[in-house]
């Protein structure tokens, strides 16, 4: 018989059947409890594994988008033209929003929107709606105050609202160079200019990062860089020169009240565009105010009949082909010439003109005589050589090619029109490129606005490679023609108003009639005045074209466009520290070893 100790005493009592029963019950209970736990665990870990692990992931994790930013755009001296800012956007889950009328009113005034517009955002079927995007910091604070988002105990008004940080493109120079830089939309999608054409370099992909978070919802570090930035672009544009060009165009707009005006400054040797200005223009940070005319990049998208600026084609071709030389004279005393039954006039009667004087005085009669002797095949050939009728290849979107008819399609009057810049459609950039040929000694350059693309860390990604130089004129012809173009700006020429103090200018005026859409004839009061040239003439630092569309009060390129050229050139030469031509004789020494 077994004995057990009794509590508080030494006596042992015998182990009865009752105790054994208790032990069995206890054991059974424990076993069943373990079996129950086993089944529950099986249910949780095997049958409901997917559902529960998904729930756990949602509670313990959070996914965030990496902030993606476009690369910056700089001018040639590293001054910012386009940068990024990070601003807050307000969204709402309309199902959770419980705002009264008064609160909606307060919210709308904080956002600077109409109450109706804010109310319209709360559509119950939508889980996510933008209320207002990319808000400035002060507006964000106002909204936070109205909705009570910063209070320790969240205000019920804040329910359903939230902020998301978004990248916003900002253009520090506003209106300056707007037609080159272009712009992006609300979702940073490219719309115009360099932003559009170089989008693949500027944008970058981001991706998502998974964060762990604790029971209170606090996020733990993932150790991942949360910002991705595209490549930076360096332009050939110089902010200072761009400003000078735009300022002078604005003055011309005020003086001549034209429909529009354009100026391009280019390095005639490399094709680098130093400035490309348009009026009217628009503020890149305020696109809503711009109309269709404001955003037109006229130097490359608008074609016009160049008028007398086209005369270098026949002039240079005649010299190059040896058809005429500087000693030849032309009888322009009648002041008219009849071609194919059409009479073409000179602006004034000139009398007997030398070859040089035909260009200097911009004689239509003399130019047509040269063109007729040259023949239509040669005129066409040289027009194409100078780059007319095809795109210059500038790295900006929307360039048009212009047009020039093939010789077989010329009418009887074409030979009287094309040599003086009619029946031809060109862009201002094409004209400037053609004059750069004379400036640089006979080469056709490729205009461009982007010089280099680098990663944010400074690693080069792309740099402009100058294509193999294509000579289209002999150096001799280019030099002779340069001297002829110098006389245009001298006393007796048509563009004395373009003369720059201290440096010789070579260039040509153009006064083109516009076609009246109603009568289909040349208009008598709508003109395009232009001046294209380069300076200093003997060692050109810049080539420039100024085009003024439909000026009021005066029409001639020498009166309207040439003074604008002069003003821009004067300041540009100072800006670039280009010495005067007479610097050697005046007071300074060139000292070398």
């Amino acid at each position, binding site marked *: 018989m077994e004995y057990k100790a009794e509590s508080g005493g030494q006596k042992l009592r015998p182990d009865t059947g009752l105790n054994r029963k208790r032990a069995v019950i206890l054991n059974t209970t424990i076993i069943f409890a373990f079996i129950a736990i086993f089944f529950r665990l099986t249910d949780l870990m095997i049958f409901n594994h997917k559902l529960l692990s998904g729930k756990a992931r949602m509670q313990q994790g959070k996914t965030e988008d990496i902030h993606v930013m476009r690369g910056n755009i700089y001018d040639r001296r590293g001054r910012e033209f386009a940068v990024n800012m990070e601003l807050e956007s307000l969204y709402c889950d309309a199902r959770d929003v419980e705002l009264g009328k008064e609160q909606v009113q307060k919210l709308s005034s904080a956002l600077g929107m109409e109450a109706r517009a804010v109310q319209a955002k709360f559509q119950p079927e939508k889980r996510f709606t933008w209320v207002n995007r990319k808000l400035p910091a002060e507006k964000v604070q106002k909204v936070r105050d109205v909705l009570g988002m910063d209070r320790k105990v969240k205000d019920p008004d804040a329910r359903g609202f939230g902020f998301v940080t978004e990248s916003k493109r900002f253009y520090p120079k506003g209106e300056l160079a707007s037609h080159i830089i272009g712009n992006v939309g609300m979702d940073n999608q490219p719309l115009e200019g360099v932003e559009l054409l170089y989008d693949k370099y500027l944008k970058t992909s981001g991706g998502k990062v998974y964060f762990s978070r604790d029971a209170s919802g606090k996020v*733990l570090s993932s150790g991942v860089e949360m910002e991705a930035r595209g490549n930076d672009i360096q332009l050939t544009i110089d902010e200072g020169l761009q*400003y000078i060009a735009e300022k002078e165009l604005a003055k011309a707009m005020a003086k001549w009240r034209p429909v529009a005006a354009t100026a391009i400054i280019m390095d005639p040797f490399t094709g680098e565009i130093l400035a490309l200005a348009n009026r009217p223009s628009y503020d890149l940070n305020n696109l809503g105010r711009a109309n269709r005319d404001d955003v037109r990049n006229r130097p490359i998208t608008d074609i016009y009949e160049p008028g007398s600026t086209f005369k270098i084609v026949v002039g240079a071709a005649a010299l190059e082909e040896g058809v005429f030389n500087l000693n030849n004279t032309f009888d322009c005393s009648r002041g008219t010439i009849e071609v194919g039954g059409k009479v073409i006039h000179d602006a004034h009667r000139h009398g007997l003109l030398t070859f040089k004087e035909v260009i200097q005085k911009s004689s239509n009669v003399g130019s047509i005589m040269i063109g007729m002797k040259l023949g239509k095949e040669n005129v066409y050939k040289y027009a194409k050589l100078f780059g007319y009728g095809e795109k210059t290849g500038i790295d900006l979107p929307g360039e048009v090619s212009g047009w020039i008819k093939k010789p077989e399609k010329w009418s009887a009057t074409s030979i009287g029109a094309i040599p003086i810049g009619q029946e031809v459609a060109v862009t201002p950039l094409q004209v400037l490129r053609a004059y750069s040929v004379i400036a640089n000694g006979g080469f056709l350059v490729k205009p461009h606005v982007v010089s280099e693309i680098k990663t944010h860390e400074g690693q080069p990604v792309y740099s402009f490679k100058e294509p193999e130089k294509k000579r289209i004129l002999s150096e001799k012809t280019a030099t002779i023609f340069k001297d002829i173009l110098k006389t245009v700006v001298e006393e007796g020429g048509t563009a004395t108003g373009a003369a720059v103090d201290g440096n010789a200018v070579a260039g040509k005026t153009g006064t083109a009639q516009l076609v009246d859409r109603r009568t289909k004839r040349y208009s008598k009061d709508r003109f395009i005045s232009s001046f294209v040239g380069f300076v200093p003439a003997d060692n050109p630092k810049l080539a420039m074209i100024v085009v003024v569309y439909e000026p009021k009060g005066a029409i001639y390129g020498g009166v309207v466009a040439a003074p604008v050229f002069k003003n821009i050139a004067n*300041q540009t030469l100072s800006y670039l*520290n280009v010495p005067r031509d007479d610097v050697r004789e005046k007071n*300074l020494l060139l000292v070398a*070893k």
Partner: protein
Amino acid sequence: MMRTKADGNIISLFYKPLCVLLVLSGLFSLIWLRSSIVSMTYSLRDLEEKTMEARKDMKILLAERSSLMSVSKVTASLNEPSRQALVSAAGPIENGYVTPDRTRVVMVQKNRTAEPQKASLRMGDKR
């Protein structure tokens, strides 16, 4: 020499608590390590948030700076009457834009050898 039962008892007397102590300290060090990592991750996240905020502010300030430094803004500033006298002393002003005097530009030819460049005004020049 023979080991007695008493010797074995003494060893086990120290050995067992030592093992328990080792296991416990190992356990605690693991927990300590884990909690340190977690608290460091919290600190890192705080720093990351501060960095992001600072970056955000920096971007806004840089944008404002480049906007203020634009030529048009500088020119507008130069046109203020209080600054006219100061600017006049710096050089000629054309519509508020300061341009250097081109007659005073010195051209220096490049030396082929790496020697100091020399430049001077002609003797007797009175400027």
